[in-house]
Structure formats: structure tokens, C-alpha cells
């Protein structure tokens, strides 16, 4: 069962045309403590820096293992920034906020 839950804050239509919209996808494998922590960390960071300008999709590879191959996922959890381009990958439980910000390239764009 794929868990594609857009976070409540996500609202692409309301995004200002000039500023970028963040389309993020978090790959997890079941409800492990690390996955839960990663999702919580992600929400916290996004709410702080990207309120209203992002969408998070959570993909459970346990339910849909074929996606691991097509999306080139190796480590769990992996956060993929699909938009804005270019795509970036961040692995780990997102506990190091600074590195997440660097990885998502938030600071320069927001």
C-alpha cells in the first residue's frame, strides 16, 4: 500500500508564481522509528522555512518495492527533491537540520 499523503500545508495553487514550489518525496520502508523521525524532522523544517510552498509525498517501498529500482533508491530513508530542478537526494533521518537545508538548497532560494 503506497502511502502518498500530501501534507496539509501543501497547496500548489496558492504558491506565488515568482517563488519556487517545493515538491518533495520521502521514501521509507515500513513504519520504523527512523522513518517516523525522518518524517517529523522534515515537516518541522519545511514548516519553518517553506510554509505553504511545499508538498511532501511519502512512499513506502515495503508496499511498492518496484519504485526502489525506478527511482534509484538505496538508502532508507531517502528524501528526494523533485522540484525545483535539479533533483537532489538526501539520505538519513534528517536529524541534522543544517545539512538538510544545504541538501535541499533552501537558503539560497527562499
Amino acid at each position: 500500500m503506497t502511502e502518498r499523503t500530501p501534507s496539509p500545508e501543501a497547496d500548489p495553487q496558492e504558491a506565488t508564481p515568482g517563488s519556487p514550489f517545493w515538491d518533495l518525496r520521502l521514501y521509507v520502508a515500513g513504519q520504523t522509528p527512523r522513518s517516523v523521525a525522518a518524517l517529523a524532522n522534515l515537516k518541522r523544517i519545511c514548516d519553518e522555512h517553506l510554509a505553504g510552498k511545499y508538498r511532501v509525498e511519502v512512499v513506502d517501498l515495503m508496499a511498492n518495492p518496484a519504485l526502489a529500482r525506478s527511482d534509484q533508491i538505496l538508502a532508507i530513508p531517502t528524501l528526494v527533491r523533485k522540484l525545483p530542478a535539479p533533483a537532489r537526494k538526501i539520505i538519513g533521518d534528517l536529524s541534522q537540520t543544517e545539512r538538510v537545508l544545504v541538501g535541499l538548497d533552501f537558503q539560497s532560494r527562499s
Partner: protein
Amino acid sequence: MSRSAAETREAPAGSALVKAPTGIQGLDEVTGGGLPAGRPTLICGSAGCGKTLVALEFLVHGAVEFGEPGVFFAFEERPEELAQNVRSLGFDLEDLERRNLLVVDYVQIERSEIEETGEYDLEGLFLRLGFAIDSIGAKRVGLDTLETLFGNLGNEAILRAELRRLFRWLKDRGVTAVITAERGDGALTRYGLEEYVSDCVILLDNRVIDQVATRRLRIVKYRGSAHGTNEYPFLIDEGGLEVLPITAAGLQHSVSQERVSSGVPQLDAMLGGGYYRGSSVLVSGTAGSGKSSLAVHFAAAACRRGERVVYFAFEESRDQVVRNMSSIGIDLATPVAEGKLFFHASRPTLYGLEGHLALMHKKVREADPRVVIIDPIGTFLSVSNAMDVKSLLVRLMDFLKERQITTLFTSLTTPGASLEQTDVGISSLIDTWLLLRDFETGGERNRGLHILKSRGMRHSNQVREFLLTDHGIELVDVYLGPEGVLTGSARRYQEAREQSDSLVREQEIERRRRELDLKRQALEARVATLRTEFKMEEEQLERLLAEEGTSRERQAKERADITRSRQGGPIASKSSADLDRRSTR
């Protein structure tokens, strides 16, 4: 009782290690049947020594030949690159993928695209692997090269823990896995993967000695199984990978009582019928002593019997051999055209020793001959040392003997060295050893042949003179005189002298016979004369006697006449008749 029987039956089956055949020529022999089934095997080696190919061949052969589909995880090469690289070796990966026999997954990790932000694991890899395995029911897995992860993921502690988990997981899944790893300095692998994979470790090596590269394979470890411990050379050619095991451990080839002609009738007579089928023959001698000619005779004789022959020439090209041998009346062009005689002429320096061995293996397997000629073996010394050459010949000979192929080697003995010593000291491997030598006498050089040894047959101890005529080789008896053996002109002179001697003797006898005849004639003449004389004397005597008789008769008559004239009585006439009778008697 039935239970205990069942237990004893099960016990060996349970303890024996199940093996997954690799299908790689030679590797299954070395490993005693393949890699440990259901366990991971580590293939390590430096760059470009064929690790990927071993892993990939293991999967392809498994899928095609052993009904075991496979999953290949490429960490370095893209699937299309990989498919292209192995297409030249005859593997069509895309076709195998379409037939659900193979899954090739390219694991792309780019350090520059990845940011690490805390704890993670490699569950994604596990899921991918598991999914791929389940999708085709794979029994085999290849991971090439897992170590790429170390370069692209920073957290080594996590990686090591995950790899340990991966190998355990692979075992739990019951798949036979092949993991390739880069060779490290002073260690088998750069990141010490051997400490996780403890069941079977195979080391590949590509060594360059004297500018000639040789690939070698060694089984470092194989838990629970006997295995070859040597370094085995292997080859990568258009047919894929080929390991060349030394099967000398066995010495179990069957032997034949059948004799095959050497092509020289007189030599067959010396050997008591020819070489044994499947034996090894060495013809050694100095330069120009006729080694190749003898070899070619053997080859031509085999072709005449309708057998196939492979001739490895390392000094002359095919056309050169054919031309040269036509000068001594041996026609090689016909068997070549008929596809009975296969020439493989190459310079010894073209390949390394192992390359030559592999090539010879390959050609022999292709042509399936009954006779193989290697002319000469000494040239291998130019690419390697004597020990390696000997090892090559041991392996080659085992291979050939196993196939009951009669092999003739020629070997050049260097002037100055002992004639009975070959450069590579292979005499112990040789069944029949013919020695060709020069005799230098009376200002000329002549060839001689003798049998130094010939295992398992009565053979002549004679030295024969070896003549190269325009109708082939002829062996003639040499003359043994006070000065030693006589050959060439000396022999011919001796022959002529003996011939003239016997002529003289014949003439003498004839003369004596004539003399005797004359004597007999003279004797007979004398006997005739004597007989005539005797006859004459006899006749004379008879005449005398006759005359005597008549004169007595006349006297008696005269006396009777006288008496009658005196008395005239009849009594007197009666007595005169008595007298007559007496005189005639």
C-alpha cells in the same frame, strides 16, 4: 533398522556441500563442482582482471544451462554498457531479460547528488534485491562491485553493518551470490569484504612477466570443500572465460595397446610396431638433424589412415613446412586441403605461455584430432622459464592423453650440452624418446637415430643411419668398425669394399673350380691313355698266343707227318689228335 538406514543415507547428503556449477570452462573442475550453493562467494582482483565477467558468466550460464535465473546488480556499469561489453563474448543480456531469466539492475549512486543527514540504512537496496529476486524466482545473484558504496556513502560504520546484514540476508534467501571486490594493498580487498564473506573467496590476478601478461585464478578459501590450491591460468577470448586446471593430480588416463605407425617402416620395426596410441613421443636433436621431417612423416601417416592431425608450428609457417616437406617427397598439401591436417603456426612470443596452452586446448577441442605435433617445444623458453614450460607441458600432455591423442614433440638440443638432455627437462613425461644425432667423420656430417627410451615396448638398441631422401626418410644399418660406427661415405666405402672383397673371393673359387676341372680332364685323359696301352698290350699278347698255337699245331703236324712217313700206322695219328686238343686249350 529401516530408520538407521535412512539416517545413514541422509547423513552424507546433509554434510556434503551442495554446489552451484558455474558453467565456466575449467572453474568447475578446480572448485570440484562449482560455487557453494546458497552462499555468497567473493571474487576479488585488481582492475581489468575479469571479475565482472566471472560474475556475469556465472549468472548467464546459470540461467541458460542450469535453469537458475539470476539477478545482476551493477554498481559501476550501466546495463546498456554491460550488455554491449559482453555481447562480443556471445551473451545477449537483453534477450535473457526478455525471457525473464535475468534481471540487470544498475545501482546509481552519485556522491555529489547525495547529502547525508543522520542515520540511515540500506533497506532500499535490500528491497530492490528482494523484489528483483522474487520477480523471476532468481537463484543466483551477482553484485558488481559492492565496494562502490564505500566511495559514495560516507558513513563506513553504517555501511559495514549493512553489508554484514546483506550477506546474512543473501544466505537466508538461499541464493548463490557472487560479489566482486577490488584488490587492496596487502589485503584481498580494499575494504576488507573478505571478513564478511567467509565461504568462498576466489582471487583473480593479471600478472605481467617479461612483457607478457598472464591471467591467473586462485581459490583462496572454500569452506567445507576440497579445492585446487594452485594458481590456474585463465583466458578471456571470444568464447568467454576459460580456466585451465592442472589435471595432473589424476594420472588416470586409460592406455591403449594399439600401435600407430611412425610413418617410417624401419622405425616401426625398431619400435616393434610403432608408437602406442595416446603416448607422448619426443624427438630431440641438434639443428638440422631431421626432427621436423620425422614429425611430418608421423603426421602424414596419420592422415593416410584417415585421422585428423593438428600441427603446431612455432618456427615455420604452414606454407613453408608444406614446401620443405615436398622436397623429401611428403605431400602435405593434400591432407591440408582435405581438412585432415590443421596447421597452427604462430610465433611463441605472440602469447604468454598460458595463452598458448589455452589456444592449443581450444584448437584441439575444435579439431578433435588423433595426433598432435608440437614443433618445437623449446621455443617456449623465449617467453617463459623452464619451470613454467614444464608445467605447461604437463598440463598439455595430461589433456592430450586424456583424449588418447598421440603427441609428438620436437626439441632442439643445444650444441655443447649433453645430447640426452632437453632444455626443459621433460624426459620424465615422455613415453618414447627418439634421439637424432650427427656423426662427424671423414669430413662429412651424417645423421643417426636411436631410441633413447620407449616405455612398455621392446625396442631396438641399434643406432641407425638416418637418410633424408627425395622419397622420405630411410633408416639404414650403420657399420660398426674398430673406429666406431660408420655412416655416410664411410659406410658406403665400407659397403663397396665388402662388395669387392666378396667378388675377389668368388673369382678365386671360380678359378679353383676351373683348375680342378682341368686336372680332372688331365687325369681322365691319362687314364684313357693307360687303358689304351693296356688294351694294346693285351691284344699283342693274344696275338702272340694265337701265333704260338698255330706254330705248335704245325710242328705237331709236321712231326706226325714225319712219324707217318716213318711208320705209316693209325695209332700215331690218334696221339697226334690228343696233342692238338691240348694245344688249343
